[in-house]
């Protein structure tokens, strides 16, 4: 490997009370890579993200970023949780400005900066709306923008499209791939949708049922930018078969 990984999880094991959740997980992600973690429901994917984000201290193992241990410390990654968690009492603009404000920026400057991304994220015209007034897809984009504005080198996305209908989902996936390329971000993403994993990823980690263990690491050698047609290519078909046989 020529470049050192952006982020590395080394042998992370997690017990929650008496529940064995994660079993010696080791994964890494390179700069500007999009890696997905694919696994059955309840296998500990969100728990793994909580560990990376520093919300949970693993029973054993380390999280390394740029050769430094960040195990159990907060604020090193931008993390989008499974629920959008927009504050119902704040406008979309305020919600999205939050990470900047919490980093010490003034509300005025934060709003200005956040507002400049609204058209890119398909949110223009909804600055003063409350979260309740937005569609599911828009809420998801707002949550994604808020995550991006935390401005950490690695984005953790926990099932960002999990709650969307099939059509919205595909639109959002295409849009996100565009954004990822434009912003040159490194993305680690959770999904339990095989198609989504193949369509978006550079690499895929397959996790087992509880306790979550890495069953396989697959490289998706499909060229980018991707379109719907590649999903029927032989490479995609082989991957799909491989994944389904593992799960």
């Amino acid at each position, binding site marked *: 490997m020529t470049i050192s990984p952006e982020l590395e999880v080394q042998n992370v094991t997690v017990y929650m009370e008496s529940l064995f959740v994660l079993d010696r997980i080791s994964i890494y992600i390179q700069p500007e890579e999009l890696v997905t973690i694919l696994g059955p429901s309840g296998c500990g994917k969100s728990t793994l993200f909580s560990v990376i984000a520093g*919300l949970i201290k693993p029973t054993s193992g380390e999280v390394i970023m740029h050769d430094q241990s960040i195990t159990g410390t*907060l*604020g090193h990654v931008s993390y989008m*949780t499974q629920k959008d968690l927009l*504050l119902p*009492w704040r406008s979309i603009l305020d919600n999205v400005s939050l990470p900047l404000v919490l980093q010490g920026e003034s509300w005025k400057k934060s709003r200005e900066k956040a507002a400049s991304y609204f058209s890119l994220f398909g949110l223009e015209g909804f600055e003063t709306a409350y979260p*309740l*007034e937005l569609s599911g897809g828009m809420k998801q984009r707002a949550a994604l923008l808020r995550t991006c504005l935390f401005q950490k080198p690695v984005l953790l996305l926990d099932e960002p499209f999990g709650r969307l209908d099939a059509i919205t989902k595909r639109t959002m996936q295409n849009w996100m791939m565009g954004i990822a390329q434009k912003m040159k971000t490194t993305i680690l993403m959770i999904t339990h949708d095989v198609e989504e994993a193949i369509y978006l990823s550079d690499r895929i980690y397959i996790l087992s049922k509880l306790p979550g263990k890495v069953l396989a690491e697959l490289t998706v050698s499909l060229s980018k930018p991707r379109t719907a047609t590649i999903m029927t290519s032989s490479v995609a078909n082989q991957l799909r078969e491989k994944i389904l046989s593992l799960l």
Partner: protein
Amino acid sequence: MSRFPRKAIPSLAAFAVFMVAWECLGAFGSLQDSVLPRPSLVLTTLIRHRSLLWHHSVVTLSEAFIGFVIACAVAFILGMVMDNFSTLKNALHPFLVVSQTVPIITLAPLFVIWFGYGWMPKVIVVVMVCFFPVVINFLHGMEHVDQDMITLMRIMKASKMDIFWLVKLPHSLPFIFSGLKISASYAIMGAVIGEWLGAKDGLGEYMRRSMKAFAVEQTFASIVIITVVSLVWIWLLFKIEMALMPWRKTENTQEE
């Protein structure tokens, strides 16, 4: 908002019918004015005693309002502190809950003994009765905050203060306001009862004098004032609540 709510028409009509019936029964002698004075008699009393009633109302209202404001401030600060220090909360919470079952009003004579016949014992009674509903509701609201939201704030490295102002307080506002509305009616009641026990002036004292003189229409006049003031007070709180929580308006319109 400006258009008259149509749903209110039946209840207003019912009220009018009730009043007219009452007036007629009184006028034809079925009801004695010394027992249940006619509405018109109460109205003339209100007009005749207007400057006296105004004076007493101002006294009572000031006591109630000052007590209410102090109670809110104390409840807010205590709620904030208790939420921040869980040991303190665990220590005090049982007392708060138990003290709610004590009819605070029965302590009023004590305050008269300690602090005499001035405004002080009244304000203390008001503070005591208003304080609990607000603080209990406030704490209840903060307990029911979505923990995932707090987690999200922690992910973004928010401080405890940030979490309080951005998440816990706005989430608790509806709870606080339901506490405030209970307290608002307690406030005037507290002041009036304080005055019953002995005062130089105030609506409670006016009522006591009316009672001694068997002036039923005067007692009714004070009841009318107290009722109207309570209603206005709660209506104002409702308006403030709406203004402070614009996001709830969208909640309501979506339900329609």
